[in-house]
């Protein structure tokens, strides 16, 4: 990370940079333009009407609420997986990493229907619980926030496992040996050594899952309830249903700005901490 890129880096990175400028920056500039120009003349009307729209404010709040919950839950579920993977031998680890990736290879649409079968009122989970406890059990897990969280964590966990695993594997084995010699018990080792030293992975996992979540669309629509409307659903409404691209673009710009601000700040803090520790 601290290595200064050489001049030849330009040669290697140049083509990718040009491509990135073309496929990312140009459309982004067009989105910004669309949000500011309605019918050919400059106007901030879209931003103003979003500011006044209760629908937008509520979806914005829901988006951040769901994204934060999704990122935190994925971390809680993904961290132990990464920890386990880090203790395996390389061959077993490679196999298990493929297992982590499997859900990733299934279409989110298909998975959402599969979750209906699992989590529904008469789904496999509720039916099994009913048999075990000998009484009719119908825990509502679908078409509400629980359903959204199940769908999101299923999608996001690989994005937690890989960066955290990289951090865990980067920890010098001799540190463990040293603390064990000093008589530290496993919980102490975890809290004093493993967790602090894996923080870069944790931070990048949290940032990337949070940022990804803010753009979720299918999961809240299929597994969520009526209140689980995220900004992406609102963008779809303006893009495809009312064809008001001025508004759709403005929502996109606002979301991008907020996400950039949050992710940028988080990364800056991370960097400063790294410098403080002399990494």
């Amino acid at each position, binding site marked *: 990370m601290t290595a200064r890129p050489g001049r030849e880096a330009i040669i290697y990175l140049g083509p990718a940079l040009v491509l990135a400028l073309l496929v990312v920056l140009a459309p982004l500039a067009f989105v910004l333009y669309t949000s500011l120009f309605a019918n050919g003349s400059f106007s901030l009307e879209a931003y103003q009407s979003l500011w006044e729209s209760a629908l937008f404010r509520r979806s914005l709040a829901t988006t951040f609420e769901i994204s934060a919950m999704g990122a935190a839950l994925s971390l809680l579920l993904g961290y132990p997986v990464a920890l386990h993977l880090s203790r395996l031998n390389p061959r077993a680890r490679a196999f298990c990493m493929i297992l982590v990736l499997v859900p990733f290879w299934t279409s989110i649409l298909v998975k959402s229907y599969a979750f209906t079968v699992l989590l529904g009122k008469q789904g496999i989970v509720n039916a099994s619980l009913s048999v075990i406890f000998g009484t009719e059990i119908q825990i509502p897990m679908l078409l509400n926030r629980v359903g959204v969280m199940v769908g999101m964590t299923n999608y996001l966990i690989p994005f937690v496992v890989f960066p955290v695993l*990289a951090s865990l594997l980067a920890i010098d084995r001799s540190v463990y040996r040293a603390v064990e010699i000093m008589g530290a018990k496993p919980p102490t080792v975890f809290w004093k050594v493993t967790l602090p030293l894996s923080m870069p992975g944790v931070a990048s996992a949290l940032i990337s899952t949070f940022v990804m979540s803010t753009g979720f669309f299918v999961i809240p629509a299929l597994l969520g309830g009526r209140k689980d409307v995220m900004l992406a659903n609102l963008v779809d409404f303006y893009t495809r249903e009312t064809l008001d691209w001025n508004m759709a673009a403005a929502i996109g710009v606002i979301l991008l700005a907020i996400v950039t601000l949050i992710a940028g700040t988080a990364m800056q803090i991370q960097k400063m901490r790294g410098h403080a520790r002399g990494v």
Partner: protein
Amino acid sequence: MSNKLISLPGRRKVLSALGSAASIAVAAPFVITPRRAFAAGKMVLVSYGGTYRTSVETALVKPFQQEFGVEVTVIDTPDLAKVKAQQMTGNIEWDVFDAVGAPGAQGSKAGYWEPLDPDMFDAKDIVGGLKKDLVPFYMFAGGIGWDPAKFGAGKAPRNFAEYWDVKKFPGLRTLRNRPSETLEAALLADGVAPNKLYPLDVDRAFKALERIKPHVGQWVTETPQAITLLERGEVSYSYVYASRVRTQTGGKYAFSFDQTLLGTEYLAVVKGAPNKANAMKFVQFAMRPDRQAALMTLLGNIPTSRKALPLVGEDARKWMGNIDNPNNAFLNDEFWADKFDVVGRRFKEWVLA
């Protein structure tokens, strides 16, 4: 951190495989674009996927290719936003557009369609009448569906007033997550006469919706979900389409024809279509009574050619009901083309509240 990741043995292969797989998955929609059909003897039809597509290919596309020697490329999902993009950039890729009522009228208002020559059609034969740039392709019936194994005779609501009657028919229901159809259903439930619906009394409709809101299990966005929710027992009754009940459940589920909302599906030729002459020929072909009958026998929707109705297969005709039933209401697409924006926003806000 990332350079350390790569230096670790064993995982490099997995990670590079992951990287390339991801980049292919991300890039695919941009790289694989539909084959363009600029040459003479070709055209592009935008329609829906799944069994719908197979039906359209069997009853329209193949016979058309045989009769006129025009090669038709069928593309999934008529998305009006893409028509807008094609009109804005002047890069028109589509010829014929299979349009549901409201987007059809919306496109008409925005000037996205070529005007149609009335001489191409038998005006008297067309139910609902030819518009300047839209021809009614077929009609679809939306109404109440349920599983007859769970709710026998008299145990399920048969009209919208009963759909709203949660005392007599307890249990969760579905409604569409959009104002069109939903507001109409609410007003019918509230006692407005089917032929006096328009212009919709929006305030009254929202008041009626307020009563049913706690009993709506899901505001359906994706059409197939309306039936899957019934199958999984998430809801007791559902707002579904007759033709979907026939194809998606193999006709096992019940659908009430006592009261339905009748919507129109249109065909339109995209403005500036690269194969305009072939497109016009195709639209004319699709309205021929024999083709209408063949397609509707497969789809189970109601043909808009009067002459086609008696030619439709018997099983499909069972799923059409009687369009002259005075309890039915015809959806007014022009109303929604004007109001969808404002009422749609209010509806979304209301659903969230």
